[in-house]
């Protein structure tokens, strides 16, 4: 990235084309020059933007696996092509990695030599005054009776005051400022490498898991307790902070009326936690945007729902199940779906499939549905199945889905048994097969636990990148020369000239600066501004 966001006019010529016959070393050199050229960097940068596009249009496994499954089911013909192109995981695809890794190699290959160059430039003296100052973009001259060395002393002082680096020769003062521009440019690009490292560290060592906790229950930070868990390649299970969190109470508030009726307004979980076994429990008010931090691991409240409480009795009249069953919300009004599995029921295992409606209404077309997300008119709608749940087969099952292969729906008078239950109501299964009672409802919170050891570095690198970027865009790099030549008749000819070395800088700024230096030297007069290249 030879000219990355900088001011300096390009000095290097474009890399020449490959010689007709090259030795391997030459070929490698040529290839390296190509890779680190600005054109290549530009092309790679553009490819990076282009490559990021499909990931926003095709569902991504890392973002929403359910949508990916749906897409695959809907587009059986496209799926193999998309899979071959890693389009379901664009941002971890080899071709995407190839783009950004090449870009970073190109960046490093340009920033490193350029840092060396900048280092020596910073220590070098400002360039000597050109012989003909009138050819510079801003120039002025006048006669004075002040001796030449007095003028130059004053010029040196003034330019130092303006934070120029100044060099004095016999007849002239050379001054240069704005080195921070290139420094900022280099800091920006090096910080991007730092950012990449931070991201990589987080991806390798970090973890993220989600866990559903019903009011009154708790969880401890162990792998087996998580409902879903993903971690980096170098993650070590022993590194999990041994904290426990229990959900004492979850309060929710929704918009009551208006065109946003039912929109969430406030979710608040009161939790008690211990940072290690045996530590005294402490209370925390967990909210969205207000995570609990335990030794660098963060616990977030990212969702909530209802866990209706059921009691199931089998044909013997024994209570074979009792407790809360988390149902998953399906829409904005928390119409929720779930199942109750009762493996201990006899003579056959029982299963119930149902809906929970926090504010139940009967819709003409959709049937029973929830009309508002808070629990105002809580109802459970259940149907029942008997047979083999398949839980003994060893195949892992979803707790939210009934495996119906070996189950038969329980019917009454030839129609599937289904009932809408209010809290306390019971649905008897025909033929003395047992009963299910809807006892009431508890809320649950979905907690996300995340640990990312690279995020501090990523944040630091981003901050430095931003600071460097601003320096590289806003610092103005300028050179100013003041020459004082004694002329016969005990007079002195003073010349002040300036050169802007900044992309897109308006000449007015430079002209003003030269005028101000001129005025500081005790002369008021017009500065001639050459307007070549423009207009």
């Amino acid at each position, binding site marked *: 990235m030879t000219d990355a966001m900088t001011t300096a006019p390009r000095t290097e010529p474009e890399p020449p084309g490959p010689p007709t016959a090259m030795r391997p070393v030459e070929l490698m050199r040529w290839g390296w020059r190509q890779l680190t050229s600005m054109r290549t960097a530009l092309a790679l940068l553009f490819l990076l933007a282009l490559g990021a596009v499909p990931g926003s249009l095709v569902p991504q496994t890392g973002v929403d696996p359910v949508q990916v499954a749906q897409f695959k089911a809907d587009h059986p013909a496209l799926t193999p092509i998309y899979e071959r192109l890693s389009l379901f995981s664009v941002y971890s695809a080899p071709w995407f990695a190839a783009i950004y890794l090449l870009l970073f190699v190109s960046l490093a290959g340009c920033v490193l030599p350029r840092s060396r160059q900048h280092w020596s430039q910073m220590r070098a003296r400002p360039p000597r005054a050109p012989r003909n100052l009138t050819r510079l973009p801003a120039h002025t001259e006048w006669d004075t009776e002040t001796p030449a060395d007095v003028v130059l002393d004053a010029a040196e002082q003034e330019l130092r005051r303006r934070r120029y680096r100044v060099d004095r020769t016999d007849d002239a003062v050379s001054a240069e400022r704005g080195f921070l521009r290139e420094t900022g440019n280099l800091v920006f690009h090096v910080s991007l490498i730092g950012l990449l490292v931070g991201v990589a560290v987080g991806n390798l060592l970090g973890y993220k898991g989600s866990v559903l906790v019903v009011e009154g229950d708790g969880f401890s930070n162990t792998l087996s307790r998580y409902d879903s868990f993903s971690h980096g390649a170098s993650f070590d299970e022993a590194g999990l902070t041994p904290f426990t969190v229990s959900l004492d109470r979850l309060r929710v508030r929704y918009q009551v009326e208006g065109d946003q009726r039912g929109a969430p307004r406030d979710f608040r979980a009161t939790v008690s936690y211990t940072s290690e076994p045996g530590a005294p429990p402490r209370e925390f008010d967990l909210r969205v945007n207000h995570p609990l931090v335990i030794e660098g691991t963060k616990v977030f409240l990212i969702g909530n729902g209802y866990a209706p409480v059921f009691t199931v009795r089998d044909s013997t009249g024994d209570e074979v199940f009792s407790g809360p069953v988390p149902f998953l919300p399906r829409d904005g009004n928390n119409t929720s779906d779930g199942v109750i599995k009762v493996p201990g029921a006899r003579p056959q295992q029982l299963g119930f499939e149902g809906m929970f409606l926090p504010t139940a209404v009967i819709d003409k077309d959709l049937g029973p549905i929830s009309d508002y997300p808070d629990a105002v008119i809580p109802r459970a709608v259940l149907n029942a199945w008997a047979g083999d749940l398949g839980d003994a087969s060893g195949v892992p099952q979803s707790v939210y889905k009934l495996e119906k292969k070996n189950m038969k729906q329980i019917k009454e008078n030839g129609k599937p048994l289904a009932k809408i239950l209010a809290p306390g109501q019971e649905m008897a299964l025909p033929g003395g097969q047992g009963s299910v009672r809807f006892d009431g409802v508890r809320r649950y919170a979905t907690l996300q636990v995340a640990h990312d050891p690279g995020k501090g570095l990523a944040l630091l690198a981003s901050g430095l990148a931003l600071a460097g970027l601003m320096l590289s865009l806003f610092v103005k790099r300028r050179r100013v020369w003041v020459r004082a030549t004694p002329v016969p008749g005990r007079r002195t000819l003073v010349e002040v000239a300036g050169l802007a070395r900044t992309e897109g800088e*308006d000449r007015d700024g430079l002209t003003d600066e030269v005028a101000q230096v001129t005025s500081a030297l005790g002369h008021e007069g017009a500065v001639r501004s050459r307007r070549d290249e423009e207009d």
Partner: protein
Amino acid sequence: MASDSLAQISNNLLYSSMAVYAGAMYCYAAELAFAPRRRRADEPPVVTDRTLATVGATATSYDAERGTGRDEPTATTAAPTGDRSDRLGRIAVALTALAFLLHLGAVVLRGASAGRAPWGNMFEFSTTGALAVTAVFLALLAKRDVRYPVRYIGVFVILPVLLTLGLAVAVLYTESEQLVPALKSVWLVIHVSAAIIASGVFTIAFTQTVLYLVQDRMEKRGGGPAFMTRFPSAAALDRAAYRMHAFAFPIWTFAVIAGAIWAENAWGRYWGWDPKETWAFITWVVYACYLHARATAGWRGRKAAYLALLGYGTFLFNYLVVNIFLAGLHSYAGVG
């Protein structure tokens, strides 16, 4: 409810500001239409100090103030048509300032009615974003840079402002309400305000880039409609567009970083390739391409300008398509 009446006043102010904007736009257009053809393409057009008197600044001569005594003409001897044109231009600026105040009032009252920052949904983001565009334009006018007569681009600034406001009231309108819990954070103020300011500046930069491309073609062909000679030269437009982009880019960068910090604090990851994040990244990369292209031989000029237009295109895609059609964690548009 008091907050409801505040929201109602806010809506009325917004409609009033749209009417005044429309008036300003016609005046800018008429100014161009009655503009006398300038003698030289590089000659800076009519006075800016008089322009400024209308937005409340004291009229000082540019040269007197800067003290540089440069030899460029700062005022042309006004021909009769030039006078009429100039008067229209000054009326246009006055109307823009008035529309801005009404618009500002609408945004402030909207925030007051909900008791929060006025950018909690897409309607509010649009109205506040349009306000940012006008604010940047007025700031440029206030700079009264005689070398870059910004007033002449007025019609092309007010047009997108009006289009945005029209879209906001006709399609995106949402009643003034409280926020969903996900948006209740100090980062809403930091992250979204940065995004709004950056988008205001990018919009002006976009206008300048389009005008640069048109003007550049005119200059190369050696002729075009009379009003185009009123615009700054292609080189001046290009430089101004670059400065705007260079100003907006760090703000956009900051908006993305602030968004990442917020995401980390809300969801436990600072970057998740959510569609909104992805397109913010794409916009960033394309504008980075533009800034690099300007420093690369063979890319500066028109090619770099096309990259800038593409950058704005990705921004618009994020604002319109991603907000409304691509589901993601940033689904706060409130558009039914």
